[in-house]
């Protein structure tokens, strides 16, 4: 059962049972985005309030499995109050944690020449592992999802909706 316990960590079950920031903000002024997972029919609604370059409030609604719901809850807690630059960075980090390719590379894996669009060039050979979990706090609990590839879409559902929402806000749509 170790794989399963890795997937359903206590933090995930906690956010599933007691979701944070659940509901919908009034829109407008908040921006509203819907996300669909055509595989399972899960739907998520993310409403996000952006003010002065910061995510000042965020809520999520809809229904789905423990992974999609806890991921949305963890996301909302993680991005609330952060600057758009920080939120973008967090989305990028989270999505790379959810990438099978990167997750299968150990810190000492030969990643040379791969992931060409991710070439930060920082700390060669050091911290070039999947994700620096110190930067993402509780979100690291979702790392186990990557071992269950079908479930990755559940975990990224709300994140994709948020990314789309921020794109729309920043392009003035």
């Amino acid at each position, binding site marked *: *059962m170790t*794989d*399963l316990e890795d*997937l*359903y960590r206590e933090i995930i*079950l906690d956010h*599933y049972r007691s979701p944070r920031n659940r509901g919908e903000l009034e829109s407008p002024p908040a921006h509203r985005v819907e996300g669909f997972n055509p*595989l*399972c*029919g*899960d*739907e998520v609604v993310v409403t996000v309030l952006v003010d002065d370059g910061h995510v000042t409030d965020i809520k999520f609604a809809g*229904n*789905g*499995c*423990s*992974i999609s719901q806890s991921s949305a809850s963890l996301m909302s807690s993680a991005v609330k109050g952060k600057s758009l630059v920080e939120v973008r960075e967090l989305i990028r980090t989270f999505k790379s944690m959810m990438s099978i390719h990167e997750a299968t590379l150990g810190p000492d894996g030969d990643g040379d020449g791969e992931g060409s669009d991710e070439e930060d060039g920082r700390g060669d050979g050091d911290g070039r592992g999947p994700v620096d979990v110190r930067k993402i706090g509780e979100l690291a609990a979702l790392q186990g999802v990557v071992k*269950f590839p079908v*479930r990755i879409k*559940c975990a990224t559902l709300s994140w994709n909706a948020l990314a789309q929402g921020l794109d729309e806000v920043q392009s003035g749509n």
Partner: protein
Amino acid sequence: MTTLAPLDVETVRKDFPLLARTVHGRPLVYLDSASSSLQPRQVLAAMEHYYETSHANVHRGVYTTAEEATALYEGARESVGRFVGAADPERELVFVKNATEALNLVAHSWGGANLRPGDAVLLTQMEHHANLVPWLILAEGTGLELRYLAVDGDGRLDLSDLDRKLDGVKIVGVSAMSNVLGTIPPLREIADAAHAAGALVVADGAQAVPHFPVDVQALGVDFLAFSAHKMLGPTGIGALWARAELLDSMPPFLGGGGMILDVRLDRFVPAGPPHRFEAGTPPIAEAVGFAAAVDYMKSLGMTRVRAHEAQLTEYAVNALSERLGDDCTLFGPPAGDDRGGVLSLGFRDVHAHDLAQVLDQYGVCVRPGHHCAKPLMRVLGVTATARASIGPYNDEQDVDTLIEGLVEAGRLFA
């Protein structure tokens, strides 16, 4: 009436190599036959034997192996057609990719040629997307009206207003067994009413043909679509049976080699059916496997298969209710003559994805999700169910393991 000896499941199981596999240290418990069945070694052997001894393209070469391949392919058409009661498979049985393609063929070819603005098509709320989307595509911007028979609280079709709904209908599309609820609608009754109203009937037999005796003459339908991979055969091949005079009148669906009599640069003359609807090199090895699957099912006996699966369905329905009580919600009609072995269930408020994930740790394969029947899920008021579905190789132990896994899921998500 002679008593039928029950299906010897122990022996049947030995024919399915995949059942020898373990997953997470547990024997595989395959409860996803509604999605795709397993294949007996007889089917695998027939396909391998074909590739090793006779493979060639069909209907083209004059050399010995090409003749053999053609004979095997056309022989498969005969076997598969006879299996569903076709009177003249040589003219009435079209090989296609799967049941989905068969239904698209009917909508596109027959529908395109015969349906006019103001005409109506009658479908049901429990159809698989395969018997919905082709009609939605056809209706887009053409003024075609789509109507639906409702599903009642027990998961049966509401036929009380059938005659009224048939007014102006040219074709009725109905599943011969629901892939979500297991409901087996009274097809003969629907077909008789449809014909009296001047409409044809296309039956989606993807779930029916693998699980009980299906005879197109007895059912009275005009088209029947089904897939090999749900009836112990390979993926990549399915069949459309249609009355000969209907196929004769229908324009081609896909164009290419093998479906023509003559081609010039400004026109073509299509071949007669069924070849008119089989453009390009067909799935020959798959047809051989399809015929082997039909032979295997005949050796089991479809009446015996149905009896076994009905008995196991009843065992499962009772066991789920006795051991899990109100924690388990089971959709569809109660076990009985009009219900097949498809068990769509909910367990407390645990999401179907999570149930299926925990069940996988027990080696149990079930399908979570909307089962390509999103309109039906809306009627049921859920976004997803976990679906356990039964095949001839399942036994009571499989059901017991399913329940064991559900109990663990309940503990984990309590």
